[in-house]
């Protein structure tokens, strides 16, 4: 096994393209190393992207935010502008593991590990985040929800690296929120989770909404019926009840040792209500 630490993205893409056997990108390593130690994967080449300066930055520009693929979640949480604009996205990232894990782990790693329970993904999907992908054939920008295609599987082509996550410039009266259900408060895996992202008009009526559920299907679910219920409402009790029903109905979870289908469906609705309210309050404050 070879370990390489390139200093430019071009080198990383080149190494990946030329790797003869199985190659793996290493960001924080908090999934990759666990999978290697568990004997689930045995890469021949490991390409560590943390020495590529450009990937270690968060840039705010006229279009919004560019979050480099190697930015650890702890650093993400310390960025005040990002926290103000996208509190739900930051909330998801800061639920990953513990302080120690957040010192290493990245949202891109979380996305590419393609776990249905990944904590940062529902809020990214609700936020309409996009990924900037670099590969042997050049660059492309795609919606984050198109990247995981099933547990442990992504749509990335061989040789492709995610360079950054792009978040839009925040509109007025907008807010987002994320919550998960776990039996304990830290170092745990979501049994089910929900994220909501809202933009209101000047009268406090929801104009735009996106609702995403985690651990409710093989990939994070974007629930359009649920979003439609919120649009045109003031997130009143009636809308919340219908939102909960729509979310419970949209779930296609599995029964496993972490939770039953029935429980996941019920709690998906409960969490959706709770995050919708929080997102609404946050939106109203801006």
């Amino acid at each position, binding site marked *: 096994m070879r370990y390489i630490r390139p200093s430019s993205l071009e080198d990383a893409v080149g190494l990946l393209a030329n790797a003869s056997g199985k190659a793996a990108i290493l960001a924080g390593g908090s999934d990759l190393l666990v999978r290697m130690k568990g004997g689930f994967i045995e890469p021949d080449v490991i390409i560590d992207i943390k020495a590529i300066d450009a990937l270690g930055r968060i840039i705010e520009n006229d279009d919004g935010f560019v979050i480099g693929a190697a930015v650890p979640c702890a650093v993400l949480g310390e960025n005040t502008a990002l926290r103000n604009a996208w509190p739900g996205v930051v909330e998801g990232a800061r639920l990953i593991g513990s302080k120690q894990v957040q010192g290493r782990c990245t949202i891109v790693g979380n996305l590419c590990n393609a776990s249905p329970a990944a904590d940062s993904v529902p809020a990214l999907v609700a936020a309409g985040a996009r990924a900037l992908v670099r590969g042997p054939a050049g660059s492309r920008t795609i919606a984050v929800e198109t990247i995981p295609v099933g547990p442990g599987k992504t749509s990335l082509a061989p040789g492709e690296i995610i360079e950054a996550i792009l978040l839009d410039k925040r509109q007025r009266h907008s807010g987002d929120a994320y919550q998960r*259900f776990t*039996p*304990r*408060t*830290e*170092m*745990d*895996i979501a049994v089910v989770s929900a994220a909501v992202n809202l933009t209101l008009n000047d009268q406090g009526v929801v104009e735009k909404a996106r609702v995403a559920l985690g651990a409710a299907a093989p990939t994070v679910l974007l629930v359009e019926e649920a979003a439609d219920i919120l649009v045109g409402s003031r997130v009143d009790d009636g809308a919340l009840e219908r939102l909960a029903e729509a979310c419970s109905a949209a779930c296609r979870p599995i029964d496993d*040792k*972490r*939770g*039953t289908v029935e*429980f996941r469906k*019920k*709690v998906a609705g*409960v*969490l959706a209500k709770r995050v919708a309210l929080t997102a609404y309050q946050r939106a109203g404050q801006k």
Partner: protein
Amino acid sequence: MNINTPIEEREFKIVGKSVKRDDVLEKVTGEAEYTGDVKLAGMLHGKIKRAAIAHARIKSIDVSKALAYPGVKAVLTHENVPRVLHYGSPHPRSASCTKDQYILDDKVRFWGEGVAAVAAISEEIADEALDLIEVEYEALPAVFEPEDAALPGAPLIHDVGPGGNLVLDPVRVNRGDVEAGFAQADFILEGTFSGGRPHPAYMEPNVCIADWDGSNKLTFWTSTQTSFMVRGILAEVLGLPLTKVRVLVDHMGGGFGAKQDCFQHEFLCALLAKETRRPVKMEFTRHETFVAGRARHPCKVWLKQGFKNDGTLVARDMKLVYDSGAYGSHGPGVTIVGTTAATSLYRCENVRLEGRCVYTNTPINGAFRGYGVVQSYYALDIQMDEAAERLGMDPADLKLKNVVRAGDIAPSGHPIVGHGLEICLQHGIDVLDWKSLRNRDRTPDPKRPHIRKGWGIGCEMHGSSAYPGIKEQGNATVKVNEDGTVTLLTGAAGLGTGAHTALAQIVAEELGVRFEDVGVIHGDTDVVPWDIGAFASHTTYLVGTAAKMAATKVRASVLERAAMKLQVKADELDLSEGKIFVTAEPGRFMSVAEAMGPSRGIPAANIVANGTYEPTKSYSFAAHFTEVHVDTETGIVEVKRVVPVHDIGRVIHPIAAQGQIEGGIQQGIGHTLTEDYVIDKKTGRSLNAGLVDYKMPLSMDMPDIETIILEAAPDPGGPWGAKGVGEDPIIAIGPSIANAIYDAIGVRFHHYPITPEDILKALREKGA
């Protein structure tokens, strides 16, 4: 308080103070050496091949490929290890013992049992070699539930024992006349209760290192609570005299009772080292601590009690079935202790108890903090709350009316000393203003109407020693050195509880020297006096008394020596803070160093004394008052606040005692709400043998714990009345949580863990 034998009262200088533990600095800096840190020249690594089948006969094992693998030095199977039937728990000839284990057998009794062992030059190579061992099994029908195992015609897991998959003959206790009691009852409550399979999940995985020297002597480092028991069983099974086995254990990363067993890996490690003539280390992975470690016995309890309308308990009929897993281990001890415990706690003259322990094809259950009593008192205490409700009484009043008092016969057969439990309960009621808590709003936050709050009480009592199951003996040797310092030699293991600090405090106090002047030597069976092991909440009580006895003797010798030098009689002298002085004339004094050291014509003194103590038993008591918040939409139960009120007699080290209580509560919260080691009921496979899916509460989940320690019922059995505390907290917290959940949402749970799914399901059924 009603104490029969007077307890010496004195002004304490060291006892009762939270002196700085001398192991904390090396532990927090990472310098403390644990068994896993030991590295010997030429050391090999051992690994165990584990069966992926729950019940089978081994038709053949082919190790040729593994042996040929580069780096592999030895492979052991049932064909080349001694076939000695040996004890499951390391307490030979005690009540907690059964003989049903071989080092390796031609039969597999649970999924994960070791069938072969490899020693290789690295852990990786040993691991890879395991895959090269080919085992052919003949599958046998398996049973995973005690109910199934007890059915006539069920597949038999062992040839030994009383038969019918029983680990021991049923334990029966009869007092008074139960039928007559029920006949007097105004009403009867009957219910079934059950407990899951919580695991101790100690921080340090089991680990050992074996090294044979040229004289054929085995030196054995191991993370054990019972080093002399390990020495004894290794010597017995390997056919060696005790002079040829030396067991070493320094620091330990916890044990909680489970590291007092006869572990297969320990024998295999010693045999691999013997075979290769090189040191061998074996260290469990976290996964192995589950499959090859020891968990708490799952238990089913049927409980029927008769009550009078004034709250008097007139009859108790109880049946308990403990699931032993594939081997007996501590099953007999747990069954006896857990069953007989139900004679007590709440007074009842007519009692009929029956405890069974049954083999199943599941991983082994063993000793674990709360030893069978967690299960039986969970049922007793919850049914008490149900009775209170039926009577329209406050559960605190009903419990107060019925808790054991001084003179009542304890489970051990002894009269109880002091009104410890009554005082704990009353104290908690007073400090919390319990009556007003009962009347408050269950949903105080109008913005969060889905959060309901409740309070519950759990009571417990537990003995400081394993008597009468084991007649114990505590030993200590105290030496006074020529510079006035003191060395205590003890066989008691240091699990991380701070026991050695407490022992040093006792010696310093009794002798009259400073705490800093006492050094503790422990953990080497060739050096320290024999010890039964650190378990049963007894170290401070048992070894503490022995240490005090030894200190009394050396004190007298030191005073004799000083008397000679000061030209007075010894009884005219006193000794305090390392200074020996004439009582009537405090200006005439000398230091212990001056007394001990040489002077012209007088050589330095050699003062050594032993203390040996064989106690019966003392009981400690506790009442836990617990507040929970239940989220009725997600089913999450948050333990918000616990006020544990404990009576542990004389407190030797307050912070260490408090640490035991807080830790026991945290562990008990896990067992009651989130922790369960789950075995697949179709295959016997472990479903969550690891810390990702075995959910222990973490520091962020810890509630506010306001510990109150009373010295309400000191017992003459311990040093200045000290009693045990290690196991008590984990017993009381469980029922206090279950009772608080009922108070919050009006749903009764008779099992643990009580999961969010259980809560939602019950609320739905209730139509809330």
